[in-house]
C-alpha cells in the first residue's frame, strides 16, 4: 500500500500571460504507515500537491499510482480513492453544514453507501477519536467553539476510515493548547490505527516532534525528503527559502560554536536536554 508520484507537474492557466508552474516534476513515494510532514512557505505548492493525492486536481503531466494502480486510468474509481485518501482542508470547520454534529460527521460514510448501522458506528468512533464527548453529538455544529468545530470537521473525514489521512495546516488559528491537543490526537491515531498521515504545515516546530520524514517544498519543487534531523542540518538553506529549523537546532548550533561539544542533531527539547546533560556529565567527570 503506497502512493507513488511519477514526474508530476501542474501549471495554472496554460497558454495565457498568467501561466504559473505550481508543481515541477515531483517524484515521491509515500509508504504505508508513514508519518510525513510536508513543509513549505506560503505559495510553495504544498496545498496543490495534496489535492493531487486524492484526485481533486489533475496533473498537467506525470502519473500517480495508488497501491500500484494508475489513478488517471479512465475506469479508476475516483470516489473510492477519495474515501481511501482522506483530505482535511485548511479551516475545515468552514465546511460544516448539517443540523447536528453526528449528522455532519456521517455525511462522508453516507456518501460511501454504507448501511445505517455502520454509518453510525464509524461516525461515533470518529468523534470519540477526536475527543468529542457524547454530550455534544446532538448539538448544532455552529454552537461549538472553534477548536471543537475543527475536531468535528476532522472526524467527518476520519469517519470514512481512510487509509491515508492528509491534514492541511490543522492547527492554523488555534491557541497553543488546542494545537498540541489536535497534534497529539493525530499522533495517537497514527499509532493506534496504523494509518499513513501527511501533515502539512509551515512550522517546523509543529512537525519535528511527530513525523518520521519531512518533505520540504519551495516554488513547486521538492527540495528535501529525509528524516527530520538531516533536513534540519541544512538550516541555512531552509532559512533562504523562508523557513526555519526548530529553535532547538539553533540552540545546539549556538552551543557548539561556543566550544561546547554537543550533538547538533537533536530535534526535540527532550533530545537536546539529554545531549546537554551528557556533555555536563562528561565535563564534571573530566574536570
Amino acid at each position, binding site marked *: 500500500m503506497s502512493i507513488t508520484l511519477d514526474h508530476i507537474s501542474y501549471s495554472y492557466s496554460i497558454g495565457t500571460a498568467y501561466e504559473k508552474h505550481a508543481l515541477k516534476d515531483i517524484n515521491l513515494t509515500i509508504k504505508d504507515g508513514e508519518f510525513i510532514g510536508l513543509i513549505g512557505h506560503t505559495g510553495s505548492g504544498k496545498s496543490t500537491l495534496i489535492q493531487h493525492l*486524492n484526485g481533486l486536481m489533475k496533473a498537467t503531466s506525470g502519473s500517480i499510482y495508488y497501491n500500484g494502480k494508475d489513478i488517471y486510468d479512465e475506469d479508476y474509481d475516483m470516489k473510492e480513492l*477519495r474515501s481511501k485518501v*482522506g483530505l482535511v*482542508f485548511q479551516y475545515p470547520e*468552514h*465546511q*460544516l453544514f448539517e443540523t447536528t454534529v453526528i449528522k455532519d460527521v456521517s*455525511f462522508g460514510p453516507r456518501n460511501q453507501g454504507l448501511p445505517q448501522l455502520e454509518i453510525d458506528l464509524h461516525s461515533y468512533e470518529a468523534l470519540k477519536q477526536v475527543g468529542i464527548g457524547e454530550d455534544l453529538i446532538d448539538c448544532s455544529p455552529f454552537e461549538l467553539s472553534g477548536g471543537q468545530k475543527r475536531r468535528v470537521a476532522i472526524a467527518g*473525514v476520519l469517519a*470514512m476510515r481512510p487509509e491515508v489521512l492528509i491534514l492541511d495546516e490543522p492547527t492554523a488559528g488555534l491557541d497553543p493548547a488546542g494545537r498540541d491537543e489536535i497534534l497529539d490526537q493525530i499522533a495517537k491515531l497514527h499509532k493506534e490505527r496504523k494509518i499513513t498521515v501527511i501533515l502539512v504545515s509551515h512550522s517546523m516546530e509543529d512537525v519535528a516532534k511527530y513525523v518520521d520524514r519531512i518533505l520540504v517544498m519551495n516554488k513547486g519543487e521538492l527540495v528535501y525528503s529525509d528524516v527530520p534531523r538531516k533536513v534540519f542540518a541544512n538550516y541555512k538553506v531552509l532559512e533562504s527559502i523562508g523557513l526555519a529549523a526548530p529553535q532547538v537546532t539553533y540552540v545546539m548550533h549556538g552551543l557548539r560554536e561556543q566550544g561546547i561539544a554537543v550533538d547538533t542533531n537533536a530535534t526535540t527539547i527532550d533530545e537536546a536536554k539529554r545531549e546537554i546533560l551528557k556533555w555536563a556529565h562528561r565535563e564534571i567527570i573530566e574536570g
Partner: protein
Amino acid sequence: MIRDITIGQYYPKDSFIHKLDPRTKIIGTFVFIISLFLFRNKFLPYVVVIGFLGLVIGASQVPIKHIVKGLKSIIFLMVFAIVFNVFLTSGEVLWQWGILKITKEGLENAGFMALRLTLLIMGSSIMTFTTTPNHLTDGLEKIMNPLKRIKVPVHEISMMMSIALRFIPILLEETDKIMKAQMARGADFESGNLIKKAKSLVPLLVPLFVSAFRRANDLAMAMEARCYRGGEGRTKMKPLKYRKEDFISYLILVLYLVSLVVVKKVSPV
C-alpha cells in the same frame, strides 16, 4: 472553472477610454443603449452605430477577441429572443408547418433583435472593461446625487454595490474551496436527476451562506472600528473631476446622436 467569467471584468490598459471620468462612461453607455432602440428595422442607422462602437472599442485598446468572449454568456438569451421573434411575428408567411409559421417580418425582427442584443452587450461591456468597480460606483453615486433631495440613500446604495462587487471573487473562491472539501468527503455534484442535484447543493450552500454572513459581520466590525458612519460629511481622497477629454467625449456623443437622427431621416429602408 467558475472563475472564467469574462463579462464585466476590468481589463487593465492605459487608453483614452480608461482615463475618462466614470460619469462620462456611464452616461455614454446609457445614451448608446437608448440609441439602439430609437429606430425600428432600418439598415443604414446600424452602420452608424457599428461605426461608433468600433471607434470606441479601438480607442479603448481592449482586444476585440476579449469582448466577443463575453458574448458567450448571453447565447441562451439570444437564441430565446430569435426563436420567439421568428415564430411569433405575424405578417407575410414564408413557410408554414401546423401552427408554426415563419414570416418575412419575423426573420427581419429576429435578425435585428440579435444585432441589437449583441451591440448592447458589447457596448455596456466596454464600460465595465475600462472602469474599475470602485470607479464605477463612485460615478454612479455622483450621478445619483440629486436624488438625495428626495431622501434616496444614494451613498448607502453605492457602498452596498461596491461591497457586493468586491465580494464576488472572494465568494467564488470560497465556493471552489467548499466544493472541493465536500468532494473529498464523497459529495457528488454532477450525477443524478434535477432533484438529487438540487439536494446535493445543500452541503455547498449552507457553508457558503454561513461564511458570507461571517464575512459581512467582520467587515461591518472593521468599518465601524474605523469610524464609518454613512455618507454624511464624508470626503473623498480623489474626488471625480471632469477633464478636457470628457468634454470632447460628450461632444462626440452628441455628434453621434445627431448623425443617427439624420441618417434615420434620409434612410430609405
